[in-house]
């Protein structure tokens, strides 16, 4: 009697093994891409918050000194991240030196008070910017907001 020995793997076994390897590699790559983008988004949020708080300082000065330039504005382009230190110092705005652009909106309102010598101003400012999508492209819009009330005496 001749016994036939089958050495090696069947096609089904090889395909299953390949699928498992692809699934493991894919999930590792997905995890790495997601972590990388999450870190970048945290960094962008930090830059956006700094830009917004810097703009808020300007608005507070305008209100305190009664030199309000524009009481309301929508989607003004501002640079939230510069490419180099020199670009930042030269104030290259939203030109070539800007890596990430944001859109600033603000509204300054004089709240009605009973006093003739004191005024309360409500300053609302928001900054819209694009967060990174999973594979490194600019994705959906994110908005951060800051509200400040400022008391001004005549």
């Amino acid at each position, binding site marked *: 009697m001749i016994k036939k020995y089958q050495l090696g793997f069947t096609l089904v076994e090889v395909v299953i093994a390949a699928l498992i390897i692809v699934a493991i590699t894919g999930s590792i790559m997905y995890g790495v891409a997601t972590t990388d983008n999450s*870190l970048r988004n945290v960094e962008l949020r930090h830059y956006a918050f700094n830009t917004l708080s810097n703009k808020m*300082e300007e608005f507070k000065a305008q209100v305190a000194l009664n030199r309000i330039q524009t009481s309301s504005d929508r989607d003004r382009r501002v640079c939230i991240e510069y490419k180099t230190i020199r670009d930042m*110092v030269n104030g290259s705005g939203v030109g070539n030196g800007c890596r990430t652009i944001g859109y600033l909106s603000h509204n300054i309102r004089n709240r009605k008070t009973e006093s003739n010598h004191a005024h309360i101003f409500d300053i609302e400012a928001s900054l819209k910017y694009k967060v990174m999508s999973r594979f490194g492209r600019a994705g959906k819009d994110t908005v951060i907001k800051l509200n400040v009330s400022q008391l001004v005496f005549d």
Partner: protein
Amino acid sequence: MLSIKLNKGFTIVELMVSVMIATIIVGGLIYIVGESNFYLSKQMYRENVKKYADNVINDIFLSTINANEVNIENQGQIICGFKTADGLVDSLKVYDFRINQGILVDGKPLETAFFHNKDKNKNYYMQVVEFKAKSGFDGIGVGSDLREAVINVFLGIQLNYRRGGRKVTESFPFQKTIFIRKAAVYSNQ
């Protein structure tokens, strides 16, 4: 007589293939561990730069909003003057910088911020390449009081570290706009 040849163990081809696979897997693992180690170190270096810049900028912010006079005339220097009740300037706080020592307050390194300089570790160190302040509102049509009350502080830090034998340099720009509540700013810009 029936002779049976028994093949026990592996052939040389099987051994070589398994050794190659093992080498690839171990090599890949070593690469991944090395990369993640480097990545973690790099993130730590970056965090240290940001922490240093945050501390410096906070210190300058607190000094300038409480100062009676702020002078940004000299490039690379911010001078805060504090007055007594009779209106005389009785103390000064001078912010200055040295490329390898960081930001100095009255000639001494800032106590609240740790600057990793070249002398301590040649493989990882920071350098201050830019430090200046200028008026926040430039241009025609802006009142002089507004121009003098808002300053922009710029701080540029360069981070240097090594990857293998290669030197890597990264630049970090930081900016803080400060509305000086009490101060009269003397600026020639």
